């Protein structure tokens, strides 16, 4: 007989109770002096206030940031200690590039589903205003060598290798894929050329994102999803007066001659944070909170972009059909689609891929194309192009908003899809 005793009971449904985020701010604007922790605390405290969680010990808080200082090794735990949640609530950090927020939610959800915890919070924060600047690599190696050296003489000898030039060449965070040296915009530009995505189509998608986000603000959709921060009440990337003419006037940002990606149809560097409250149905009922929707499942995928055989941001194209097959669903079963808009071109490449019979057969192993997505159902309250994209905060933003859309709709099913650096993609299904 084996002494293996892990015997999980049937899984439980995971309820999305609500979410909270701070308005997203373009890099080096309103939140220029906020750290990741400041932003995460603001979002988390707003959620605690809204759902009256003061002093409560929750199952866990999972969150992360993509651009992180080494001192933020315990970002989630440190943030939690600055809120009015019970300090007895455990926390841990998650990091999966732009998939961080949604991956954190899946981790918490899976524990709830397995009965290990009853309630938890998932989230993420990112600031590129307060980015880490490292000391020069040569200086760092020299200092480490001095640290290893035994005795004052050897230490001094090691330190003699410090050169003044080392002090003026710090290590800056790079906006590029480590294995290709190309920026994400350059990768996406290549995808746009491969899929022949027109500039106009990108600008139209961008305009829709701004217009729908503006409309959502105007009808009060975000009133119970956002807590103002530093005097900012709505995302400052939002251009209510955006127009196709203005967008058409922008110069290509990554390929000056033949490019179609601009500062308008690409998301800017953004600061912000978001969190989502997840619980079992029992916990929701016991605490008197309605269930907005259920987080049914998730799927991650990765593609080999290093040798150029697939586009950097195409992994969601693979994750979605795998998830649909596993769950026995098709696009016709969905009422809403929340597709993260890193670049308008990346969304359009993915949509085109799902309609392309050859691609679906050869790359995705599907007998028939996945089919088109009704744009009226996609990003109905705007997307990242409108509100901006603080990397780790996007998943939480989408999850809370989609749950609320489904709740307002009186039920339905929605799909979330996020592309991420490193050829990663993460997707999820939300329904009620």
């Amino acid at each position, binding site marked *: 007989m084996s002494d293996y005793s892990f015997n999980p009971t049937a899984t439980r449904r995971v309820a999305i109770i609500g979410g909270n985020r701070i308005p997203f701010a373009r890099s080096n604007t309103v939140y220029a002096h906020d750290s990741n922790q400041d932003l995460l605390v603001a979002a988390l405290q707003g959620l605690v206030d809204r759902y009256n969680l003061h002093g409560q010990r929750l199952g866990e808080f999972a969150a992360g940031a993509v651009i992180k200082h080494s001192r933020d090794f315990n970002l989630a735990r440190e943030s939690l200690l600055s809120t009015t949640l019970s300090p007895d609530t455990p926390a841990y950090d998650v990091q999966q590039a732009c998939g961080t927020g949604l991956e954190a939610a899946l981790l918490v959800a899976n524990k709830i589903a397995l009965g290990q915890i009853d309630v938890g919070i998932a989230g993420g924060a990112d600031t590129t205003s307060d980015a880490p600047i490292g000391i020069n690599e040569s200086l760092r190696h020299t200092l480490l060598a001095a640290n290893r050296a035994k005795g004052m003489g050897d230490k001094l000898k090691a330190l003699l290798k410090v050169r003044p030039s080392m002090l003026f060449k710090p290590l800056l965070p790079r906006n590029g894929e480590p294995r*290709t*040296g*190309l920026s994400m915009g*350059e990768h996406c530009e*290549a995808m746009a050329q491969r899929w022949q995505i027109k500039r106009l189509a990108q600008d139209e998608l961008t305009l829709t994102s701004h217009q729908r986000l503006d409309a959502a603000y105007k009808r009060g959709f975000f009133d119970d999803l956002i807590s103002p921060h530093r005097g900012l009440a709505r995302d400052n990337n939002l251009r209510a007066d955006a127009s196709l003419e203005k967008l058409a006037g922008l110069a290509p940002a990554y390929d000056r001659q033949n490019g179609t990606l601009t500062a308008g149809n690409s998301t800017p560097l953004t600061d912000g944070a978001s969190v989502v409250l997840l619980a079992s149905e029992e916990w929701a009922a016991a605490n008197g909170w309605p269930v907005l929707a259920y987080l049914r499942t998730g799927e991650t995928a990765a593609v*080999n972009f290093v*040798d*150029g*055989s697939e586009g950097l941001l195409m992994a969601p194209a693979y994750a979605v059909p795998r998830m649909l097959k596993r769950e026995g669903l098709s696009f016709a079963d969905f009422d809403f689609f929340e597709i993260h808009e890193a670049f308008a071109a990346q969304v359009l490449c993915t949509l085109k891929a799902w309609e392309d019979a050859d691609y679906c057969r050869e790359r995705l192993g599907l007998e028939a194309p996945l089919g088109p997505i009704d744009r009226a159902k996609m990003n109905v309250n705007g997307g990242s192009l409108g509100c901006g994209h603080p990397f780790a905060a996007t998943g939480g933003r989408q999850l809370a908003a989609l749950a609320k859309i489904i709740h307002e709709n009186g039920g339905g099913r929605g799909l979330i899809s996020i592309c991420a650096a490193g050829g990663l993609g993460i997707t999820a299904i939300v329904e009620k």
Partner: protein
Amino acid sequence: MDYVTQIIDPPPSRTRLLLDGARALRKPKPDGMPALPKERLVRPAVELHAADIAAYGRACGFRPEQGVPLSYPHVLAFALHLMLLTRPSFPYPASGMVHLANRIRQHQRLQAGQVLRLEVYCARWVAHPKGQALSIATRAYGAGALVWESDSLYLRRDVKDPIGEPWDDGLALQEDGLLRTQRWVLPADLGRRFAHVCGDFNPIHTSVIGAKIFGFRRAIAHGMWTLGRALAAQQPPGGLDQAEAHCDFKLPIFLPGQVALWNHPSCGPRREFEVRNFAGDKPHMRGLFIWKESVK
């Protein structure tokens, strides 16, 4: 051609090579038909040191899981190349020789700790439109078997009526559809760093002043660095058994700077590639990298 084998042991020091290089800056014009040197320079037992391979790998961007870089044994033979080029019997001044092209063939997997016998000799004349070219052969034997070989083509410009077989770059590459797949940012001290791992301290690579003396506005990257970087970018993990790399050196890469790798995505174990400036309108290297996929 009958060669006179000369065993080189121990290898020459860096100072010795630089002095020989300086002495070979000028040479009297050969009377009548130039002749290829008859020496075959041999190092009987050169060990592939893991630490040296790692340092070379770091300089070119190889990852440890890629095994011994295909271009690495070239480094071990560099001193022999320079000795041959600076010999009194070599018909032209060493500093005027332009490294035009290189072909590398590996017949067996190389391992750290392995001991190789290296042989370097002038193999043949090549008639190039721009002057007289000649090929220097490098052969590496392990336990008596040829495991790795390289042919380096050097050009002496402006020699009229060159002799030998006509030049054929052999790289009829499909330029259409090449895509920019990588960006390489090259620091100002790249030449100095690579010199320390490859032994080539030619001042055109290691200092601005040195480069200016020889007519370049800035220091230029080693051609063999560019080849190493390109192989590192495309070599699969797990090491190579049989493989080939061909490259033609085009415009020099000035340091500091940035260049890009252009190739055909996902074309399996046969990679046609170019290294160009980032905009893609100036070629620095054109190459072909082929490997035999090992049976798993």
